[in-house]
C-alpha cells in the first residue's frame, strides 16, 4: 500500500501519462502479434531514444518557463561537426564526439546568454538560433551528407549490450542523471523556483542567470547526444537532420505532463511521453497505417493528452479549491 502510494506521489501527474502508455501498449498487443516481441520492444526503445534524450533537456527548459526551438538544428550542427572532424580531418573518434558535444553545449550557452543578458524571450532567442545553427550546418556540409563514418562511431547507434540497443542504455543513463539533477541538486530546485516565480527566485539570492544558462546548455548538450546517435545510425551526418525535431521533443514533454507555463513537471513524464510517441508510431506501422494517418493520429494524441490533463486538473480543483485559493491569494 505504502509503496503504491509513494509511487503514485512520486509519479504524480505523470500517472496519467503512464496509464496512457500502458493502455496504448495493451491495445497494440491486442491489435498485432508483432508488437509484443522482445526485438520489437527493443526497436521501440531505439527509435524513441532520440526524442527522449533531447526531451530530458527540454523538460528542464520548460520547467524554467522557457522553450528551446533550436534542438533540431543543434542536433544537426553538432553531428555534422563531429562527422567532419572524423571523416575530413581524420581525428580520433572520441575526441570528435567530445568536441561535438561541447559544441552542442556551447550553442545552448549562447541561447542562455541571449535569454539572460539581452534579455530576449526564449521563443525568439531559440528561433534565431534555430536558423543560425541550421544555416551553419548547411554551410559546413554544403548541404550534402557527410558519410563514411568510422565503425567504432557507429556503435553509438547500432551497438547492442546483450539484447538491448546501446541508444536505449544511453537514454536510461541520461534519465537517471536528469532525475538526479532535477530532484537532488540546486540546478533542478532553482529551475522549478524560477519557473514558478522568477522574481522570488531573484530575491532569494539565486543567480537565476547562471542557472538558466546551465539549463539551456544542458539542453544543447542532450540534443547533440541525440545528434550523435542519429548520425551513427544513419551512417551519415546531414544538414537536414532533425528538421521539425523540436516540435516532437516539445510534444513528448507536454504529453508527459509538464506544463508550458513553467514551475512544474517531472522528468519521468517526458520519458513516458517519448515512449508514447514511439509506441504509437511503431504500432501504427505494424498495423500498416499509412504515415499520413499517423501524422493525424499523433496530432490528436497531443490534443488528447493535454485535454485529459486539463480536465483532470479542473476536477481536482473543484474538489479542494486549493489552486483558486492560491490565485485568490496572489496579492497585487
Amino acid at each position, binding site marked *: 500500500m505504502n509503496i503504491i502510494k509513494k509511487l503514485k506521489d512520486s509519479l504524480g501527474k505523470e500517472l496519467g501519462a503512464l496509464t496512457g502508455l500502458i493502455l496504448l501498449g495493451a491495445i497494440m498487443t491486442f491489435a498485432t502479434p508483432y508488437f509484443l516481441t522482445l526485438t520489437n520492444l527493443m526497436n521501440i526503445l531505439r527509435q524513441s531514444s532520440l526524442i527522449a534524450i533531447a526531451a530530458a533537456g527540454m523538460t528542464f527548459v520548460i520547467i524554467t518557463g522557457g522553450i528551446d526551438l533550436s534542438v533540431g538544428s543543434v542536433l544537426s550542427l553538432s553531428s555534422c561537426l563531429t562527422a567532419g572532424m572524423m571523416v575530413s580531418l581524420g581525428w580520433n573518434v572520441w575526441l570528435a564526439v567530445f568536441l561535438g558535444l561541447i559544441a552542442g553545449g556551447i550553442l545552448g550557452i549562447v541561447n542562455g546568454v541571449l535569454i539572460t543578458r539581452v534579455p530576449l524571450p526564449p521563443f525568439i532567442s531559440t528561433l534565431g538560433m534555430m536558423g543560425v545553427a541550421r544555416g551553419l550546418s548547411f554551410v559546413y556540409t554544403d548541404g550534402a551528407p557527410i558519410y563514411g563514418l568510422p565503425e567504432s562511431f557507429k556503435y553509438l547507434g547500432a551497438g547492442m549490450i546483450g539484447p538491448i540497443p546501446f541508444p536505449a542504455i544511453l537514454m536510461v543513463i541520461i534519465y537517471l542523471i536528469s532525475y538526479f539533477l532535477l530532484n537532488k541538486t540546486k540546478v533542478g*530546485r532553482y529551475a522549478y523556483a524560477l519557473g514558478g516565480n522568477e522574481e*522570488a527566485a531573484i*530575491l532569494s*539570492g539565486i543567480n537565476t542567470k547562471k542557472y538558466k544558462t546551465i539549463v539551456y546548455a544542458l539542453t544543447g548538450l542532450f540534443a547533440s547526444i541525440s545528434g550523435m546517435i542519429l548520425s551513427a545510425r544513419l551512417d551519415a551526418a546531414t544538414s537536414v537532420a532533425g528538421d521539425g525535431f523540436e516540435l516532437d521533443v516539445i510534444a513528448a514533454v507536454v504529453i508527459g505532463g509538464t506544463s508550458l507555463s513553467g514551475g512544474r513537471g517531472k522528468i519521468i513524464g517526458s520519458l513516458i511521453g517519448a515512449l508514447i510517441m514511439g509506441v504509437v508510431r511503431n504500432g501504427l506501422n505494424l498495423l500498416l497505417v499509412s504515415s499520413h494517418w499517423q501524422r493525424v493520429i499523433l496530432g490528436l494524441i497531443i490534443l488528447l493528452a493535454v485535454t485529459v490533463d486539463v480536465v483532470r486538473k479542473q476536477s481536482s480543483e473543484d474538489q479542494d479549491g486549493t489552486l483558486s485559493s492560491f490565485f*485568490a491569494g*496572489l496579492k497585487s
Partner: protein
Amino acid sequence: MSSNQSILELSSITKKFPGVLALDQVDFNLKEGEVHALVGENGAGKSTLIKIISGVHKKDGGEIKFKGQSVDIKGPKHSRKLGISVIYQEFNLVPYLSISENIFLGREDMKGQTIIDKKEMYQKSKKILQDLGIDIDPNTQIADLGVAMQQMVEIAKAISMDSDIIIMDEPTAALGDNEIEELFKTIDNLKEKGISVIYISHRLKELWQVADRVTVFRDGQYIATHPISETDKDLLITEMVGRELKEQFPERDAEIGEEILAVENLNRGDLLKDISFSLKKGEVLGFAGLVGSGRTELMRCIFGADKMDSGKILIDQKEAKIENPRSAIESGIGFITEDRKKQGLVLVRSVKENISLTDLSQVMNGMILKDDKDKKLAQEYIEKLNIKTPGEEQEVQFLSGGNQQKVVLAKWLIRNTKILIFDEPTRGIDVGAKKEVYSLINQLAEEGVGIIMVSSELPEILGMSDRIIVMNHGEIAGQMDIEDANQENILSLATRE
C-alpha cells in the same frame, strides 16, 4: 528589548530612477531590538529604501553603517549574509514548491557538494513553524495555502535566516484582523530576542500597537522621526501629506430610494451559504469581514464571474438572469475589483482604451470605432475625475495607483451603472487619493447609484456606509445600520466561531 545601540545607520541616502528622484539624502536609524515604523504616501520612497538595504537596488549616494561599520551592500545574497531579511510588499513565494523548499530557497542545506538535504530542511522548517504556533506539514505546496498562511510562510522564511534585522513591507495589507494579531505577537517575540524590525504600513492605527518609533518620508525626503508615544495620527498625516487633511470621510447628502438589488438565498459550495440581502438606490452598503470570509466570492457571484449553485438575483425587483459578467453589466452592475492591476486594467493599453472598454458602442458608428468619439469620452472622464495623466493616450501602467483606480472607476461610470460594487477600493492607495475615492463614492450615491463597498478597513466601513453587513465563513453573520455600528460589534460578528 530595545537598547540604544544602533544596528543600522543610513545617512544621506540618494537614489535616482530615470526621471524620478526616489530618495533625496534621507537618513534612517535603526536600533537594536526596536520596531521602527516607516510611513509615507504612495511613492514616498519607502520600498526603495528597503530595496537599497536589501541589495536589490544600488544606492546613488550616501552611507550605510551596519553594526557601526560602513558597508557596501552588493546584492540580496550579501544583505542576507549580513543578517538582514525582508518580507517584500509583493508575495515572493514559489507556488509549486513546498513550504520548506520555499523557506530555504537559495540557501539549501547540502549533503556534500551537490546533493540537497531535504530531510534536514524539513526538520528545521517544522521547528520554525511550530515556534510560530503554526501546525502545518512543511511539505505542503504553497499553492495549497490561503493568503494568510502564505504571509506566515514569508514570515517564517524571514525568521529562519536568524537575522538581526527583519524588514516587513506592508505585511498586513493582505491580512485580516485575526492574522494581524498573530503577526503582532510574533513581532513582540522577535523584539524580545533582540531582533530589530523595520515596519512599513499604510494602516497608521497599527503603529501604536507594534512600533517603538516612527519615521516619516515625503516625496523621497526624510521628514521626521518620533517615538511612537510622542505622536498621534493627525500629526503623522500632516507630516506625510505636507498639509493638514481634515475629515477623512467627507459628508454625503444622498437620498436613499427604493430597492435596486436583492440577493435571495444565494449558495455556492462551502464558500457562500444562503446569502440574502438587498440594496437601495443612493445607499452605500458596507461589507465587513475577515479575510476569506467570502465577500469577494459573493461579489463575483453577483457579477457573474463565478457561478452560484442556487439563489436568485433581483434587479429593480425583477429576477435577473446573470450568467457571466456580460449579462451582469447589461443588467446595470459594475464591479471595481480588489486587484485593479490583475483584474481591472489592461496596463499596456491607453487610458482611452481602458475607459471605453466596457461599452464600445458609445464610441462606434455602426461597426466602426470612431477615434474622435473615443478621445472625447476619455477626455470627459479625465476631467470629471481629475485623473492625472499627460493625456488619454498614456498607457495606464504609467499612472500612479490612485489615478489607476480612477480609470477603473471611469470605465464603469461611462455606462451609467445603477449598481456599483467596490471591492477594497482604497487598498494600497495613499491618504490623499483615498479621500478622492470617498468623494466619488458619495457623489455617485447622491446621483442615485446603489453602492456596495467591501472593505477590510473598519474605519472606512464605519466612515462610509449607510448600512453594514458582516460576513463570517461564507454566511451573513449580521446586519446593522450605521448608527448601531461600532468596531466592537462588527469584530465580534466577524470573529464569532
